[in-house]
């Protein structure tokens, strides 16, 4: 792999991890896709004249053409421009809420896994409450207090997604807690904080990475669901969620597929890219995969 040769032969573990990551073809594919996506998302609007919200009632529901690469929607807006603007909004919502739920989920899971029986029982009961709260009600109440918009959407989605991660992290750390090196470092007086930082994090990196990759997609879908309740990103602003949501009418579903298929396709590609990057990161940071 020519690229790997240019990188300095860094001796530090992150250096080696970086070189392994670069050497991993699928991870590089994922990275390339993401970078391409972000570039187009930020550069195209500055270049193109067609705004995401500029309507043209004489050109509604037109299939993809030279004028409108991906066709137009029900009010004549350019689907490609909305796809990009929607992409920015959806990715912003998805990434921030994924990271937020990652932090909460990991923290609760780690405390439960390593913090001893009482911390475990306490944390797990909190998780139970969070999981038993029917999402419909939480969505309705939180969103109606905070109203629609990107901020509340991120808050609602993060609050809904962390419990599952905390249970996964806890189950991994329960098993880990038995292992000698953890018992040993406890013996050397390592507090919960350093235990989490030095042992819990590296050993659950694979769960965390898989969670983030799945959570990005889940966040965008939740945002679409919010549109079902009239919340989420309010129209006329674009987001992949409310563009996908337009497909709930059978006519749009069958006669104007370009209006919902492209946001769906974009979402699948982004999720795939993030999955590849995630796998690449997990393999890169996994010391045992030296032979890989």
């Amino acid at each position, binding site marked *: 792999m020519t690229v790997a040769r240019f990188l300095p032969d860094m001796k530090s573990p992150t250096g080696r991890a970086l070189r392994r990551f670069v050497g991993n073809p*699928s991870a590089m594919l994922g990275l390339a896709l993401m970078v391409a996506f972000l570039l187009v998302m930020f550069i195209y609007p500055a270049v193109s004249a067609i705004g995401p919200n500029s309507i043209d009632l004489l050109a509604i529901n037109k299939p993809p053409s030279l004028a409108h690469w991906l066709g137009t929607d029900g009010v004549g807006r350019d689907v490609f421009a909305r796809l990009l603007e929607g992409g920015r909004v959806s990715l912003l919502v998805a990434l921030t809420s994924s990271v937020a739920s990652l932090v909460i989920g990991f923290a609760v899971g780690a405390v439960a896994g390593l913090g001893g029986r009482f911390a475990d*029982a306490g944390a*797990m*009961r909190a998780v*139970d*409450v969070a*999981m*038993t*709260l*029917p*999402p*419909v*009600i939480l969505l*309705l*109440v939180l969103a*109606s*207090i905070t109203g629609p918009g990107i901020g509340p959407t991120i808050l609602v989605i993060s609050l809904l997604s962390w*419990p*599952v991660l905390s*249970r*996964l992290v*806890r*189950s*991994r750390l*329960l*098993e880990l807690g*038995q292992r000698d090196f953890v018992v040993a470092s406890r013996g050397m007086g390592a507090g919960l904080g350093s235990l989490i930082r030095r042992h819990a994090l590296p050993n659950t990196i*694979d*769960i965390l*990475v*898989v969670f983030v*990759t*799945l959570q990005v*997609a*889940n966040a*965008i*879908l939740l945002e*679409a*669901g919010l549109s*079902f309740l009239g919340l989420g990103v309010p129209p006329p602003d674009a987001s992949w969620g409310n563009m*996908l*949501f337009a*497909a*709930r009418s*059978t006519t749009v*579903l*069958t006669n104007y597929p370009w209006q919902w298929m492209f946001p*769906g396709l974009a*979402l*699948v590609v*982004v*999720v*795939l890219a993030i*999955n*590849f990057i995630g*796998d690449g990161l*997990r393999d890169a940071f*996994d010391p*045992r*995969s030296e032979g890989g």
Partner: protein
Amino acid sequence: MTLYLVRRFAAGILLLLALSMLVFFLLRLAPGDPISSYIDPMASMTEADMERLRQSLGLDQPLPFQYVYWLGEALSGDLGRSLQRNGQPVLDLLSTSIGPSMLLMLTGSTLAIIFGVIIGIVGAVRRDGPVDLTLAALSSLGVSSPAFLTSLVGLYVFSGVLQWAPAGGMQDPGMPFTVSGLLKHLALPALILAFGQTALIARYMRSSLLEVLHQDYIRTARAKGVPGRMVILKHAVRNALLPVVTLIGSTLGLAVGGAIFIESVFNWPGMGLLMVTAVEARDYPLIMGGTLMVGAWVILANIMTDVAYAFIDPRIKVG
């Protein structure tokens, strides 16, 4: 073991109490109340009528009093009556809808577990091979397709156009109940519910299996002359299942929420459909009853997962 179960169930009861209190007061924060859902802008219902209806339903009492009254009734087994028009007892509505929901969810989840685990194994064993990449793409499609979109596409294609499956409902209305009729109606919604969950389980299974294949005892197994396939199925998969069991337990619990879209599109008379109509009508007693039942199910699912976990992994002592 039984001590552990007693303790967990006791904690569960307390939890349900806390949950009911939380939901009761949260509901009041949501705009609108049962009466405001009665009004149809077309109808001319005077403000006085609305006020009188609120009194008759006891909605004008102070909140804590209403909660205590509700709790007293609930403990005696009477979850009160739905505030929607024909005021059926909440317990009856819940008991008729919990069955279909469980059936849909358990079938969907079972399919998801079976297909998810298989796809996860194939993905890990043939890592980065063409099969793995296509499975990764398919599972990304699964993960990133919203329930309501897959339901609509599924409904339109399989029942509208191909007419393979009936268009929603649990049985042909009016016809006598037949198991084959039920299965015919159950097939499509269950497969769609499974589609999303399969992708989730497959991804976690693959990652967990890759982790396990590095372990030393896998090399020992091969050193024992155990054939390749058996090494994977008997030794690796069983260890890799541990974290996945937790995931399956949690998604089983959360499936009720996910089923809302599927139940709405397929008119499946389950808890999802009941809760959506209840929330739209701000039907407090039905929402409270539904929340408790869903809550109990999630708690049960979590307890079962932890027990199953301890059962599969001898190292984890229960409790």
